[in-house]
């Protein structure tokens, strides 16, 4: 797995995770990733939306125009059932990966 693949894979994981609880729109997703990573991860408009469209195309998420009171029409993305199972699988392999890294890295400094 190259670093690009890793980054791409992790970005997908981030989006899927953030959509697990509730539908969100693109801007909100970008803000959440930035704030929860304390600024370490940032997406701008040019990188975020192609990612969303790709996930949507794969059928993992689904975008829908929603009009909420007092707000303008926005496109909200929600996790599909296929997306949910992908998220589960990704989480598992991610945990395994992190655990493996921790064991190696942690062992060195243990």
């Amino acid at each position: 797995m190259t670093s690009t693949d890793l980054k791409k894979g992790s970005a997908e994981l981030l989006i899927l995770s953030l959509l697990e609880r509730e539908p969100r729109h693109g801007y909100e997703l970008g803000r959440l990733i930035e704030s929860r990573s304390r600024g370490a991860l940032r997406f701008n408009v040019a990188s975020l939306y192609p990612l969303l469209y790709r996930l949507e195309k794969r059928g993992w998420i689904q975008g829908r125009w929603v009009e909420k009171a007092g707000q303008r029409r926005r496109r909200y993305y929600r996790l599909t059932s296929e997306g949910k199972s992908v998220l589960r699988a990704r989480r598992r392999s991610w945990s395994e990966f992190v655990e493996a890294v921790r064991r190696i890295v942690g062992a060195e400094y243990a």
Partner: protein
Amino acid sequence: MPDWKPEIRSRLADLDLDPVRSEEIVLELAQHLDDRYGELLGHGASEADARRVVLEELATGDVLRDELRRLERPADPAPPVLGKPVAGGWLNGLWGDVRFGLRSLRRSPGLTVVALLTLSLGIGANAAIFSVVNAVLLRPLPFREPGRLVAFWGSAPEMGIPVVNYPDALYVYFRTRSRVLDPLAAYSSYSVTLTGAGDPERLNTGTVTADFFRLLGATPQDGRTFLPEEEARDRNQVTVVSHGLWQRRFGGDPRIVGKALTLDGKPFTVVGIMRPGFDFPNRAELWIPLGTDPQSLGCWCFATTGRLAPGRNPQDAAREIARLSDDFWREREGKPRSDPDSTDAPKNLVFAEPLLRQLVGEVRTPLLVLLGAVAIVLLIACANIANLLLARATARGREVAVRCCLGAGPWRIVRQLLVESLILALAGAALGLALAYGSVQVLSGLVVERLPHLHELALDPAVLLFTLGVTLVTLMLFGLAPALRGARVDLQDAVKEGTRTTRGGRSRRLNDAFVVAQLALSLVLLVGAGLLLRSFQNLMTVDLGFRPENVLVGRVSLPYEANQEPAKGRAFYGQLLERVRGLPGVRTAGLTSNAPFSVGGNGQIFMIKGREPAPGQPNLVAAIRTVTPGYFAAVGTPLLRGRVIDETDTATGPQVAVVDETLARRFWPDANAVGAQVRLGDASSTNPWLTIVGVVASVKHGDVAEEALRYVYLPLSQGSAWSMDVVLRASSDPAALTGAMRREVQALDPTLPVYEVHTLEQAVARSLGTQRLTNRLLLAFAVTALLLAAVGIYGVMALGVSHRVNEFGIRLALGATPARVLGLVLGQGMRLVLLGLALGLAGAAGLTRFLGSLLFHVEPLDPVTFGAVALLLVAVACGACYLPARRATATDPLRALRYE
């Protein structure tokens, strides 16, 4: 809040997205940018800074566009896999081919633009020249059954008269006896002065026999045409007016029929108004009956034309007229003028050909030559485009191979490639027609006005049809070979990863063949243009026998009765001469019955004292000009021996004549003609003998290229004239004297118009007009052809070099010097050039004889022209080969080898 949408749209523009999807993305991204902008402002950024940051984020490394390109399907599906069954039949698949063709042409804009320009030039030139050919040569004359109208005339080459019209006696004889031609009409055109209603005006007039209108199917819109009895000389005071004149001069008043007009001072009763559009001969505005006298041989000046009886052809007519002509002379003189069994007797030759052909005689050959030239240009253009497409077909080998692997049959591939060519051809034709439309406007302004119907020059359906035909032929020529070649790829080779596109021997040979053909064709065209240019050069240096600079000519005609009273005419012209001589700005002035390069002037029989022809021998013929003192100085014809006609030659003095050098040298090659005596008329004539007092230089009379006629000049004081050209030599701009000349004439007689006013230079230039235009056009076509051929050979050599780049690298790496590589490439190019040269020279040698009648003092196989053109072509081709050859020597061996 800034509007981000235009910015976003521009970034998505070339992605070819489905429009609905595209707008959705734009909306979503714009909202995101709004939020981001607001956020930045909230953090204290200025509006300008916020805007800049937002746009920078949008633009980041073109990520958006690249990612979206990968993700989003373009509006059109990927190219249909050729060969798979298409729902909706072949037409549906064709539409797919068209769209695919358009896209693939758009992908190589350079090639498309070059091909379109080349094609539009080629097709446009063809359409333009064809529109002239169509209007002048092909479109039938606007007469009844024009295909059966035949013009005929005699010829007496042994008398130096290539074309001779007939006198009324012969016409009447023919008319009453011909079985091949019925009806048969005679006509001639001149001009008359209309006075009475408004200013005096000179009008083009046809004198025509009664059958003339019936022959041509010209029916009057009101009244009638002429009755047979109105051909009698005392009954012919009637006239038919043209529709144009009726409208213009008489305000369309129908009561004009039955009224009298004053023509040349005599009353003529209007009997009819012609239908609109009929103005034959020579844009006539009036017609009056031709008085025919069955005995008169006075004026050999009537054009004759007739309608062929069913099943007969022009040759039948010529044979019959020749036989009738013999019968006529046998009845009249007891012997025929032509004797088919005798070789020394003069022959009455008769020629007959379709009327249309006779009317357009002088422009027929130049037009056909030009049509041939544009066809050659188009062929060369086709070869160029074929080469371009061939190169592209080779470069697209892998694309084609993939399609073949996916199941496309060769026919589908050929069709796809042909459709691309079709798109090119049709677009080229559309551009070409636009070009032709422009050129036709220019052409109709430039081409001499004597052509019948040239005012109707237009891009009519025939031209459009022709253009369509040319386009399709063009398409076949440039599209077929590359398409067939393109469909034949080596699948294994082409699909293999890393194999560079191959260029097989067959494809190269095809390229080479096109180049050879181009070179050969452009050589043919260049030789043609070269020969015509040399002819023109010769024409320009011909000694005209007069100096046309600063000379103004204007014609003044007295009413016809002046003929009956020669003294009155002489007095009038004498006064006129005195008056114009005194005009400021006039250096010298003189009058002549016909100035050089003006219409008219007939040959007459004359005899030399002591050399009267024996019975059966041909009579001598010379052109007769009546002149006043001062004429030779005014026109600039130099005196060679003796003296010119001057004031001492009075009506009562000795009868004198001046002859020209051609006549003098013909009859007195070793002796002085001055002092010899001549007489007008044949053996039976009672005219007085005239003593030759001077010899002047020979003068070209109507055409620079003509053989000079023999001239006899007579003093006006001893003869008569009722129509003279006033010739003024000015000290500066002659045209400025026009008004003064008119004023002097009006002062003598306010009813006389001055007409056909022109400078001699204009007249000479006009006589060269057709040649000048032909030359310019042909030269332009030849240069175009040369450029196209140069581009063609350059392209092929460059392609060859780029495909052999590693070969050259290896050669250079193995120690070949750049000079050797240069020689190798140049040598290969030169082989093509020499082959093209050989074929072109052979072709030119075969074709230039068609130029024969257009050449002047240049042989069709003129070695100078052939040599110079061959050198030019070699030089240009060398240049075109040299550039790629230089590139070959600059190959970096390492770089070239790295590809291996």
